[in-house]
């Protein structure tokens, strides 16, 4: 049975990919923003410079909206495994489940429990306890990232298990499972990606307001902080990404072959294909522009080392090459652009033109969403590259799916697409509106009394009867 010519398996994959892509965007943003808020609040408490408090209040509202969208799209995820991948859940739930269980117990509750206090409780609990709450939210997001990348990494590099006669996975060594071979690389790479995503969003917003008013102190501070992150963390991220790639080559050579667009094995050094069009049917990458030997140099740090091509693997065990090939290039290109902006900002800082160079501000504004795109591109690379398996080498995607009709999955997919684009589309419009507010308070004296609202939701334009659409924070 098919639904408009699509099989239940493909529909389930599209649905999962769709819901998790949306979900991934929000945590990628909220992990970094939570830590940024903790830093801003700590700076406020330490230096008693009101600019930091203003920035905290400014980003707090944006964080609240992002976090809310992350929560609701995340609840969907905890049920998608059962609704769409019930066989996977039945067989591997014994390993993936406890890891996610720990994520809920150690992270989700921590974030949610302290979020109310962090957002609304400064006056009720005092500065010190409020700082604890803000820190707990930030720590919660990081713990969450740790567990979920561990669970995901295990699906790429499964170890520490046995499989019984019914095909059920039994955990044998939890230490090995949690710290599976690709976990450290993936975890660091993902968390750094989240930090960089936030850094470029903050930098973009700061640059936008500097372009409008280059004397705005809050805009200067956020731009400067973001550019420090860009300059210092991007090189680290590129290094970590390279390590992650080497790890993948060791454990999932077919994925690397797909990312690189290599169908043939190159025994005497593989070229680096800068651009081309992989064709799985013909087993050739068309229109390839290559640099000889560079592929081996990057992957094996030896220009003459052998790199396996996709033809080494039988057809039914290969990932499709087209998508990882392109998403990988998008991610790397964005990484290089981030590095360029970071280095440029260092140069401008040294020359004393960080807050004056309008070209840099325009570039930073343009790069504002780059982290979000890079995160998704990287995610597609690694996940599509794992195909045709859900648990690499052990369980095929086609064997993981729920016994549902294509109609059911197709109908719910359409519902998800409509609702997600409507709700999160509107949410993104609101986020942009919030970012468009200049980071100043009209009534600074109000701040001496602390935030006005101690209960309820973060303040927004709808509470201001005289709001002219410009949306100043009050």
């Amino acid at each position, binding site marked *: 049975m098919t639904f408009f010519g699509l099989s239940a398996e493909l529909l389930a994959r599209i649905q999962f990919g769709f819901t998790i892509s949306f979900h991934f965007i929000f945590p990628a943003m909220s992990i970094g923003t939570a830590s940024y808020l903790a830093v801003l609040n700590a700076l406020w408490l330490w230096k008693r410079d009101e600019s930091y408090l203003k920035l905290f209040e400014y980003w707090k509202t944006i964080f609240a*909206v992002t976090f809310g969208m992350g929560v609701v799209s995340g609840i969907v995820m905890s049920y998608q495994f059962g609704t769409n991948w019930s066989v996977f859940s039945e067989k591997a739930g014994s390993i993936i489940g406890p890891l996610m*269980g720990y994520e809920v117990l150690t992270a989700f509750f921590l974030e949610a429990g302290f979020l109310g206090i962090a957002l609304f409780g400064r006056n009720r609990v005092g500065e010190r306890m409020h700082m604890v709450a803000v820190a707990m939210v930030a720590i919660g997001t990081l713990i969450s990232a740790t567990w979920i990348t561990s669970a995901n990494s295990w699906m790429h590099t499964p170890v520490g298990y046995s499989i019984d006669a019914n095909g059920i996975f039994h955990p044998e060594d939890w230490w090995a499972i949690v710290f599976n071979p690709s976990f450290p690389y993936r975890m660091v790479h993902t968390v750094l990606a989240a930090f960089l995503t936030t850094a470029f969003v903050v930098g973009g917003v700061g640059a936008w307001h500097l372009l409008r008013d280059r004397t705005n102190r809050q805009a200067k501070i956020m731009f400067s902080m973001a550019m420090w992150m860009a300059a210092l963390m991007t090189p680290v991220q590129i290094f970590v990404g390279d390590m992650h790639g080497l790890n993948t080559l060791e454990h999932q050579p077919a994925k690397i072959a797909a990312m690189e667009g290599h169908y043939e094995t190159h025994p005497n050094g593989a070229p680096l294909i800068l651009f081309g069009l992989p064709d799985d049917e013909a087993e050739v990458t068309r229109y390839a522009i290559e640099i000889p030997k560079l592929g081996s140099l990057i992957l094996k740090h030896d220009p003459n080392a052998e790199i396996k091509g996709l033809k080494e693997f039988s057809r039914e065990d290969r990932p499709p090459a087209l998508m990882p090939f392109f998403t990988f290039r998008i991610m790397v290109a964005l990484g290089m652009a981030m590095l360029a902006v970071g280095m440029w900002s260092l140069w401008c800082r040294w020359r004393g033109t960080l807050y004056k160079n309008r070209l840099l501000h325009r570039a930073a504004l343009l790069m504002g969403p780059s982290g979000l795109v890079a995160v998704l591109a990287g995610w597609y690379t690694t996940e599509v590259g794992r195909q045709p398996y859900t648990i690499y080498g052990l369980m095929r995607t086609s064997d993981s799916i*729920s016994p549902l009709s294509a109609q059911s999955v197709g109908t719910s997919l359409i519902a998800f697409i409509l609702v997600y684009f409507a709700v999160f589309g509107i949410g993104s419009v609101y986020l942009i509106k919030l970012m468009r507010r200049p980071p100043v308070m009209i009534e600074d004296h109000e701040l001496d009394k602390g935030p006005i609202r101690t209960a309820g939701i973060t303040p927004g334009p709808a509470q201001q009867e005289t709001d002219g659409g410009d949306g100043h924070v009050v």
Partner: protein
Amino acid sequence: MWFDYSVIWAAIIAFAVLAYVVLDGFDLGVGILFPFFPERRDRDVMTNSIAPVWDGNETWLVLGGGGLMAVFPVAYATILPALYGPIIAMLLALIFRGVAFEFRWRTHATSRFWDRAFCLGSIVAAFTQGIAVGALVQGITVEDRAFAGGTWDWLSPFSLTTGVAVLVGYTLLGATWLNLKTSGDLQAKAHKLALWSCAAMFVLIGVISIWTPFIHEIYFERWFSWPTAFFSALVPALLLICGYALWHGLKTDKHLQPFLAALGLFLLSFTGLGISFYPYIVPGALTIQEASAPTESLTFLLVGAAVLIPTILAYTGYAYWVFRGKIDPEEGYH
């Protein structure tokens, strides 16, 4: 072994589900009650009363789902495809409702729309959760450890009735919560709504209680054979006591007592469900032992749960304590 890890885990999962039902129950109830409070000002107070805690409340739903996958993977893998329709509808409803908390503050123009989304999302989430429970009580076709039924198996007069019952139950929780957290006209109205929903809830509990033993012989046996008959007699008696406490609390204008009594009603109904289910996790199809994950999975997560769940309860309690007391309607304005 009668008392093993899987039974402990069944109790923990049951606790998570119960915690979710009562905590998000009053949240959702507040949303369901929106049509009775058309004033923007009242609605602000209503959402402000739950804004600091709703996120934590909903996390219990994630624990229920994630925990079920971890310790009873087969139950997770059969229940979710079987209840595909209501679960997907619930998730989508929770999305609308969850984002409405923040979105309704973001614009003048569309705040009405988000209020409606908040209300409808709450209603659909409550109704579909009730349908899911009813469908589970009715039983799921399981063959060879997998769901083997049809797309619409979950839809029946019984599951629709339980859907309405949960909707009414959440309304009662929401009304008693508002009675606790608000003052003035808003509270007076909530007070009246609590009385009505309490009466409706009792009718529905009665209907479902009479209906259930005739759905499946296993329920009939459990309810009317010794020693469980003792408990199945005790539950209705305690329900009546709770009902009286609720009614009396409202009549004498107590603020906390009606809310606690409403929680009691849910606890007892849930216990009744537990008595009916045990030792099954998917009634008539899978027992707790059959559905359980390997022991290594149960013990690994139990170590953490033993420490973390009390910790979670402690800081969740602290968060509720911080935001205790009546909501000041002026607090949100200046």
